[in-house]
């Protein structure tokens, strides 16, 4: 597995933290690692350069050097600048005062436009809109059928003209059909195309002229590399995009492309796609994305999911425990169990701080069977042991292993994992005490 930005920064941080004061050389060393890590996260080389310079400029400022905890200050600056670059706040779709609102999805082949069209329709229907999907991908085999299937699954109408090879006409008639049917939202799916394909880029311009979309959304694969800037820049300069949807973020890519795209176009990232299912379109949160790129664990998302999965009080408790490190093996077990109610395990675990950063924890990808083991081990401990694992010595380990039908190695592994999780949380909460944004640093 990749070591993420967070791992690198934490290593750098450790070096910085040991010192009372930072020299310019310390900062340069740290910045070199920041640069490396950002490049491994696929942030564009040029963006990285300017970013590192901006951070360095701020870091060399006097208040940092005089600060008692300069290391933390630098991480805070990196995170803040990252958030700045990703966009100040969450954006949503602007609904037209005179319906229908017309949205148009564009992007490279295979980015995920058709699926996002379905997701957007579902998500906006939930907020009271009446969408019509318009199938303008006349090129890729069975693309129209794909949208039709999604429409059927969602019970949302799909407009297409069978046999018609002219996407401009389809788009135009689609919009007219929406007006006729009194639908207040039109979502146009277009064929994937290369940003250097002049003919097909012209076609998008023609569609734009024909339907005057309120928003043109560029759909981008989160796994895109350095080329993301070229793609985004071309689509933006040809069409003038209004926002970006970053897809496939349920993968394990760091998603540096998102940063690059925001940096070159200045256009907001509005949504992120988190899965193949149609209810997995999420509003974009710059702070979370920054944390993700930094590999710091998406604590905010976790807490939000926790709130959805059970009651608020429990979520607050969890949050407090994470902060005050009164986090015991019981909580660990409790959390693992509750995590199961929150969604796919790997996805949720990725949001727990420490999981992204710790090598051992990364190998620890529990499936249901592992969870059973963990449960058994923890249940074989006394209450005292669960609350104060430090007391578990060699002979207690043997007892616990025998009691849970596991091996001493299993017990050792669990204790080690727990200790690491606790350490991560401690580090996180110490940083949290400083800023108002508790979990972001």
């Amino acid at each position, binding site marked *: 597995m990749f070591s993420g930005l967070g791992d690198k920064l934490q290593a750098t941080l450790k070096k910085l933290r040991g010192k009372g004061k930072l020299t310019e050389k310390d900062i340069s060393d740290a910045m070199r690692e920041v640069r490396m890590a950002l490049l491994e996260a696929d942030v564009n*080389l040029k963006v990285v350069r300017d970013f590192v310079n901006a951070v360095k400029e701020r870091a060399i400022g006097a208040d940092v050097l005089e600060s008692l905890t300069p290391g933390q200050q630098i991480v805070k600056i990196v995170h803040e600048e990252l958030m700045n670059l990703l966009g100040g706040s969450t954006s949503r779709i602007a609904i037209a005062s005179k319906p229908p609102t017309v949205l148009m999805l564009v992007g490279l082949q*295979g980015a995920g436009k058709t699926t996002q069209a379905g997701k957007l329709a579902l998500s906006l229907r939930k907020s009271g809109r009446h969408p019509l999907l318009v199938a303008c991908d006349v090129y*890729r085999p069975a693309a129209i059928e794909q949208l039709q299937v999604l429409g059927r699954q969602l019970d949302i109408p799909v407009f297409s003209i069978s046999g018609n090879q002219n996407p401009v006409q389809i788009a135009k008639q689609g919009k007219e059909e929406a007006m006729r049917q009194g639908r207040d939202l039109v979502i146009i799916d277009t064929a994937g195309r290369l940003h250097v394909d002049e003919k097909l880029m012209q076609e998008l311009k023609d569609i734009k002229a024909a339907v005057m979309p309120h928003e043109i959304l560029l759909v981008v694969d989160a796994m895109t590399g350095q080329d993301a800037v*070229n793609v985004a820049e071309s689509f933006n300069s040809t069409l003038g995009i209004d926002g970006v949807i970053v897809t496939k973020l349920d993968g394990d*890519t760091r998603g540096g492309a998102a940063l690059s795209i925001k940096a070159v176009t200045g256009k907001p990232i509005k949504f992120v796609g988190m899965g193949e299912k149609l209810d997995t379109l999420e509003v974009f949160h710059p702070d979370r994305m920054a944390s993700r790129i930094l590999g710091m664990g998406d604590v905010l998302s976790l807490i939000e999911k926790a709130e959805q999965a059970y009651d608020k009080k429990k979520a607050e408790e969890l949050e407090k425990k994470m902060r005050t490190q009164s986090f015991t093996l019981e909580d660990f077990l409790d959390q693992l169990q509750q995590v199961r109610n929150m969604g796919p395990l790997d996805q949720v675990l990725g949001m727990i701080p420490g999981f992204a950063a710790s090598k051992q924890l990364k190998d620890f990808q529990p499936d249901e069977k592992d969870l059973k083991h963990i449960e058994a081990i923890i249940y074989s401990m006394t209450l005292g042991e669960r609350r104060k694992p430090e007391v578990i010595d060699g002979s207690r380990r043997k007892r616990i292993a025998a009691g849970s039908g596991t091996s001493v190695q299993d017990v050792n592994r669990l204790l080690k994992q727990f200790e690491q999780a606790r350490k991560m949380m401690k580090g996180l909460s110490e940083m949290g005490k400083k800023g108002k944004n508790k979990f972001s640093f």
Partner: protein
Amino acid sequence: MGFFQKLKAGIEKTRQGFMAQIDALLSGRKIDEEMYEELEDLLIMHDVGVTAATNLLRDLRRLVKDRKILDGEGLRLLLKEIISNSLGEKKPLRLEPGTLNIFLVVGVNGVGKTTTIGKLAQRYKEQGLKVMVAAGDTFRAAASSQLEIWAERAGVYLVSHADGADPAAVVFDAVHSARAKKIDLLLVDTAGRLHNKSNLMQELGKIRRIIDREAEHSLREVLLVVDATTGQNALVQAKEFAQIVPVTGIVLTKLDGTAKGGIVIAINQEQKIPIKIIGVGEKISDLRDFDPQEFAEALFEK
């Protein structure tokens, strides 16, 4: 925000000026540290990645000394050679005449698996082989219809089940049908899956086991399709897929865009998986054999 403006202007400049800069830098000048840095930047801009780029640069420095290369032009030629050599010889797809050959095509979502299968079907049909495609993607909406259209275009046999069916069952049927029909080449399409989804990866493992069980020694190629625009994540993809299925080669698609797919250098360095074919467009004929030399050349183009 001034920062944005600066950045934007900067990137525009970089993109346009970069290659010209490299040319100016490298032609006729004596080798200096700046040249190495520029070459490293070039590699990074093509998604080669920091680690793989560092490895290449290390080899470059060593060979520059050994061969007493003095100027920038020589430096560039040498780097090309190093890259090309690192990728090895051209490696054709393996086919044993007179037997059933099975290619399994895998990869993350949207990289070009189905399209590649259409292109491969056409290629081998034209070579006179009896070809069948199996619609192993029963998950994505209209995925089998998509493959069906490609099968029609190429004029090859198709085995597909209803949407939502068990892909392993499709593959089982396809293997048996291929046997009965004396098919030379069976191309198995699979649903796009992210490598970090363990249930989907296990499903792939199951497909592979079915093939091994029902047609022992027939699985000739397991092709991992990689989109040339992909960044460093492709390295993880290669690693994870190779743990589940014995990946024998990479198909590098969408090389008709501006991305050059430099990440395959890193994949090759780390995983020793050869790149076998490339996709250069959406038409059925847009398939080429991978040529290490051409690939290296392209990194320095424009």
